[in-house]
């Protein structure tokens, strides 16, 4: 319902509600550069806990994607203001939870849960800290992801149909800017805290405040006052914004089944935290995790089949399946899922290589590595965001197929070059060039893939179709992280054993050789990940070649 209010007021409202959207999107990638710093600060061995710690990244992506699917509908039913405020409170609660992972009460509660509910010995303290960080991240993401569709829906309430394009573009840009800059922000801040932490403490002390030395936790503390500001603002400015209250029933069974399917798929593809925590060795983890994973994947498959059955029957489904009968919607969805998969490979492998290259395991080196990783990842994401512009231009003139296929082909070449050249001493500028090539390639697909879907669906389906495009990319990222983390850890062990199988060495020779072998095995695994990226982007090329139209449509519009 669009009320008569001045355009300035509408833009002010949009600016206020977009601030938490930006912060939430920032947190999508903020941890990818600083994850090793998090594991180190929690005093956990990186190799043993990398799989579990990766849930701090993929858990956020997954929860963000899931909440995006249904929050818009919830706001239709319960009102924009109510749902937005609740989402913002959830985001703030999650941010707070991340910062109080060492709370004795929470830890005691978690221990009791293990002992009384699961009947297991509680995990060690540092492991509980990690689980609480992950829980906090997931809670954060539920709020952050949900705010995106609610904000998009607010644009519909605040602006008339002929004026919605720009504000919708702004919401999209704010969300993109957030995840594009997240890792750089994280890396730069962690280095700043490492180098000037004491100066910050002293500066506050001069003002009469006693504060703890800032660290990675501070990145989440900052969210709270920013969100509180936005909360007050949103509470005030949304008081007379009334969205269209719909009486239609919310698709609860569909939502629950979709959540079960996605969580089952992602947990099943990786080793579960429970299995990992109880395994006495990596071999046990593999054996125990294997059976557990199979059941989870079967469960996810059953949940997804039931989801499809429910969606085909209910009157107001979460996702209208008939959308996928249209060729471009199906192909674009698949392409975007694969783009997400490739993007995650880029986001994960560069920080891994940077961290393995550290000269000595000191705090300064870990913080410096976070900074380098942040800068390198910007080399992937900033060109990706910028390439969306020429991608759109090409799409309008040459159709959807050319820019999409060209983009994923460029990404394929970038992955092959990275896989062929990355070594323990590859210059960062060369890695940056290859990351930029991948980024530009993936970025060229954004506009044609999005436009192909939006132009194919009916007007009333565009909201959910737009969300679906983003959700599929996020799901592609989570699937990549879940499946490739366990693959990488397994391959590392195999390669390490190969490198060490050079006849019989003395104790001293073994101790010396193992350090070199660990680095060589890690670099080899990271290079293999690039080749997997190349294969996946090649599949995306094949999918892109099946896309149709775009140019004709634009010509027809121009002629019309």
């Amino acid at each position, binding site marked *: 319902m669009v009320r008569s209010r001045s355009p300035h007021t509408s833009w002010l409202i949009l600016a206020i509600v977009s601030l938490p959207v930006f912060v939430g999107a920032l947190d999508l990638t903020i941890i990818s550069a600083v994850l090793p710093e998090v594991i*180190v600060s929690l005093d956990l*061995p990186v190799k043993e806990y990398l799989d579990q710690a990766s849930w701090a990244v993929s858990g956020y992506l997954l929860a963000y994607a899931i909440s995006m699917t249904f929050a818009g509908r919830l706001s239709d039913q319960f009102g924009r203001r109510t749902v937005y405020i609740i989402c913002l409170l959830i985001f703030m609660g999650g941010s707070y939870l991340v910062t109080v992972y060492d709370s004795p009460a929470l830890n005691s509660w978690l221990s009791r849960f293990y002992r009384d509910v699961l009947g297991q010995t509680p995990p060690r303290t*540092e492991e509980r800290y990690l689980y609480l960080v992950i829980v906090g991240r997931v809670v954060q993401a539920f709020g952050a992801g949900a705010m995106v569709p609610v904000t998009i829906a607010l644009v519909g309430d605040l602006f008339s149909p002929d004026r919605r394009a720009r504000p919708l573009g702004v919401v999209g840009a704010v969300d993109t800017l957030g995840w594009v800059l997240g890792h750089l922000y994280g890396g730069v801040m962690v280095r700043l805290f490492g180098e000037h932490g004491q100066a910050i403490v002293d500066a506050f002390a001069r003002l009469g405040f006693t504060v703890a030395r800032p660290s990675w936790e501070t990145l989440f503390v900052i969210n709270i006052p920013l969100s509180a500001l936005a909360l007050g603002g949103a509470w005030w400015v949304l008081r007379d914004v009334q969205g269209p209250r719909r009486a239609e029933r919310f698709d609860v069974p569909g939502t629950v089944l979709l959540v079960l399917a996605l969580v089952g798929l992602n947990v099943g593809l990786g080793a579960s935290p429970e299995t990992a925590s109880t395994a006495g*060795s990596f071999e046990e983890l593999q054996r125990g995790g294997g059976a557990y994973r199979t059941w989870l994947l079967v469960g996810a498959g059953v949940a997804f089949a039931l989801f499809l059955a429910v969606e085909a029957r209910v009157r107001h489904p979460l996702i209208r399946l008939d959308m996928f009968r249209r060729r471009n919607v199906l192909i674009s969805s698949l392409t975007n899922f694969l783009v997400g998969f490739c993007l995650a490979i880029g986001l994960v492998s560069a920080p891994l290589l940077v961290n393995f290259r550290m000269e000595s395991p000191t705090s300064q080196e870990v913080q410096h590595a976070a900074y380098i990783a942040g800068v390198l990842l910007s080399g992937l994401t900033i060109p990706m965001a910028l390439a969306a512009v020429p991608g759109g231009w090409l799409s309008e003139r040459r159709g959807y197929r050319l820019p999409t296929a060209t983009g994923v082909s460029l990404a394929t070449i970038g992955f092959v070059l990275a896989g062929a050249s990355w070594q323990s001493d590859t210059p960062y500028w060369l890695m940056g060039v290859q990351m930029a090539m991948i980024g530009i390639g993936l970025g060229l697909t954004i506009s044609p893939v999005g436009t192909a879907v939006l132009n194919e669906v009916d007007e009333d389906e565009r909201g959910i179709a737009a969300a679906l495009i983003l959700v599929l990319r996020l799901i592609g990222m989570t699937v990549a992280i879940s499946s490739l983390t366990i693959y990488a850890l397994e391959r590392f*062990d195999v390669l390490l054993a190969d490198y*060490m199988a050079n006849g019989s060495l003395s104790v001293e020779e073994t*101790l010396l050789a*193992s350090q070199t072998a660990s680095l060589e095995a890690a670099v080899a695994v990271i290079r293999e990940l690039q080749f997997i990226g190349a294969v996946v982007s090649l599949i995306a090329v094949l999918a892109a070649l099946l896309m149709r139209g775009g140019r004709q449509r634009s010509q027809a519009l121009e002629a019309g």
Partner: protein
Amino acid sequence: MHTRELLALLALVVLAISACGSGDSASEPTPDPHTLLQDGVAQLQNASSFKYEIDVSGYPVEVPIEGFNLSEDAGVSFKYASGEFKVPDRLSARIQFRVGVLSTTADLIMMDDEQYFRGELLTGNRWLKAELISGFSPAVLMAQPGGIAHTLSTLTDLVLVGRRDLDGQSAYQLRGQVDAGRIFSLTLGLSRATSGLLDIEVYVGVRDRRVVRITLVEPPPEWAADAEPTTWLINISDYNAPLNIEAPAVGGSG
């Protein structure tokens, strides 16, 4: 909900919380700390096996590993171990070391005086037959004198602090002091202190009177007198569980 109903609900919640917090046997006579400790020591002395967990916080416990090439500013220190002990002299452990600020793990198996270990960073996961913890034999854990049970039986200034909830497990908290020269077995031979009295706490399970936790505070070395002390937290569980600890194949990674 009306105010009266709300107040009634609040009163119920307060009652429930106070019932939970008041302890399950307010009228139970206070047990004698020496009797509690004797009961715990006896169960430990008679155990055929147990599982343990050692977590160190505060000032680092350095571990010299000969032949391991590291930069000058990155020493190796002990952080955590969990494992099993089978009477009389078999012990297995997964040990977490800090190398600089990074942590890595090593698997350790001890059979009498023989030690086998492996770790990704240390040995590329190959089992080596060599001493990881110099001069330590698992037989010392049950030795008389010097074993854990014997060391606990020598505590002085023993007092019962009260009952504590250890994450859902109710235990009596005893506090006392121990001669630093006797803690070799408690710390797997990794402690620095060799003389003087150290603060120690022993937690004895309310139901089974078994020693479930020991905390030991070791002062920092003299050259770092202002630093935090080292706190050793030792959990003991699964008394008399059937265990099988065998020597691994040297040179293999399985």
